[in-house]
């Protein structure tokens, strides 16, 4: 049933200490789970089972409850992001301008459906409107924004970030 691609957990002792400190501050706070998950994601970049278990045990919740919240909100991610996070806007304006094709081309170039490449360099996400519809269709790589994209520009942009 599990369909997530399994990336080995590489959390450090320092990250764990930081998380535990955050959790100590939240221990008797009502509604602690949301801030706990948000800060854990800030520390680790994503919310793997190892991290969610620490949160569940410390806050006295079951793992299923923590997982339920982590999968309810789209701000949380269960898979790590790549060194370069690629986003393609599939909001209305970008979509009618053909961002679906851009997305498909990136999938083809990276060889993944979504998530992260095996070398952990690139991750791919479909995003909602990022607020620059005038540039549609838009893709982003970390903080760089590429507007008025065409399919044949994709390979060149990805190449810029390789190695």
């Amino acid at each position: 049933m599990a369909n997530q691609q399994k990336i080995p957990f590489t959390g450090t002792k320092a990250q764990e200490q930081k998380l535990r400190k955050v959790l100590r501050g939240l221990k008797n706070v009502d509604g602690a789970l949301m801030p706990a998950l948000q800060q854990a994601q800030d520390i680790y970049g994503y919310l793997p089972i190892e991290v969610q278990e620490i949160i569940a045990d410390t806050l006295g919740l079951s793992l299923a409850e923590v997982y339920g919240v982590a999968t309810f909100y789209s701000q949380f991610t269960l898979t790590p992001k790549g060194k370069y996070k690629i986003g393609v806007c599939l909001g209305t304006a970008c979509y009618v301008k053909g961002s679906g094709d851009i997305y498909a081309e990136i999938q083809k170039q990276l060889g993944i459906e979504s998530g992260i490449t095996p070398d952990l360099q690139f991750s791919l996400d479909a995003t909602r409107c990022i607020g620059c519809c005038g540039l549609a269709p838009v893709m982003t790589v970390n903080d760089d924004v590429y507007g008025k994209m065409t399919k044949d520009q994709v390979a060149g942009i990805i190449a810029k970030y390789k190695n």
Partner: protein
Amino acid sequence: MINLKINNIPVSVEEGTTILQAAKKVGIKIPTLCYMKDINAIGACRVCVVEVKGARSLVAACVYPVNEGMEVFTDTPKVRASRKTTIELILSDHNKECLSCDRNTHCELQELAFEYGCNDKRFVGAHHECEKDTSTSYLVRDNSKCVLCRRCVAVCRKIQEVGVIGPEKRGFKTQIGCAFETDLAGSPCVACGQCINVCPTGALHEKEEIDIVRAAIADPEKIVIAGPAPSVRAGLGEEFGYPMGTNVEGKMATALKMLGFDKVFDVNFTADLTIMEEANELVERVKNGGPLPMFTSCSPGWVRYLEYYYPELIPNVSTCKSPQQMFGAITKTYYAEKMGIDPSKLFVVSIMPCTAKKFEKTRDNQNASGYPDIDAVLTTRELAKMIKQNGIIFNELPEGKMDDPLGVYTGAGVIFGATGGVMEAALRTAVETITGEPAQDVEYKKVRGTKGVKEATYEVGGMKIKVAVASGISNAKKVCEKVASGKSDYTFIEIMCCPGGCVNGGGQPIMSSVVRENVDYKALRASVLYKADKKAELRKSHDNPVIKEVYDSYLGEPGSHKAHEILHTSYVTRTRYEK
């Protein structure tokens, strides 16, 4: 008191009462689907909506508190239309294989659909894609029949405090499952089956073993033995229209023989045997300095909980196998030898109020004869199903009797099915073992009743013995915390996984939310067992003549080397989630 009108009928109720409860007082049943008394009140399904004068929209009666001067209407055209649409929307994404569904004719969704004259094809659209989870030996989850009522989640989280399932994802993709979408076998589920008992539809049921039992019965080479647990006789009648709290032991014995079992023995007998070993173990631990307190080991859901969540307390659990496992073990050793039967030809079927027993039979170190102690486990519900499938008119059957020799039991054995029963039975024997004198009073009333945690202190031969009895995992957790922190002064602790004990096990007949609303089912079922005990000629396990015979001619003393080989077992530490 709050005064309001429901359908123009004035009623006064206490503050904090919901519209649903207030309506009941004036004789109006508001339909519900996600609501279940003491377990789930979240107003999620919108089936219980009613009109409140002045309110902006319809409100959910199960969670809406009454207030002064309120005027409620429960059956207006608007209310009926809303309920009907809600049910039809649920039906649009429901796997409607009702004819062959386990819950056909006792499904709460089916009843509602009928009551509201629903058209199950009014909305046609996408269906959830989901696989059945058949990963465990005891339970099947089929989310294509799930209505997302969250009753199973509530019972797992709030009543059992295990919380291995929950809603995940959102919107149309919402589903009930385990963390990280592992299957149930990959989660620290204790196998209690309480989720099955609260499910309004056929999304949850036990893993059936009827076919392998039928195959064994049809095999001329096999000698097929049945052994029903104490609580089965206290619940089975409900499947045939008897009032709750009816003892159907005699009819059950007749039915089992008609189904083709070669011998019908009784797990009550091995409940007595358990007491012999467990009371002896307790006395030994008290004499030899522990480890104390000692926990009972009859409830496989409890044992599983301990292995997952409190492995440090494993040395405190009695090493006695459960009555079910002892039943198989003694049948395939003592009985096989006595009758000159090769144990490989024996096929032992236990009938249990329990789903965890289906898991227990697969545990390691449960094969005293060299063959599995137990070959198949049927729940009370599966037995009822077999009886119906065979065209046996249960209600008209003559009263039968369990067979000799392993069908002979005392009152101590029969009360095992109620919370506190094992404790009481053990005390009856332990006290006489310690004092060496026959006890006059055999009733230990302080450990009876359906309270979650019970405590009592008894003077035995100049010694003070403090005992605790807990049922339901949330209560077990409290006791475990106390013991683990070193703050307990208990000597002996009985724990049952299900609230109220085995009479309320996950394999017992399913009660709809309406029945649960109105009946103290735990006490009613338990009363069957206490009445049988009261009536019994022999009420102490060590007075059972067959038990005496088994020790005299075969096992030697309780706790002997041979008894250990056949009747005792060991436990393991379990990892909650494999990574």
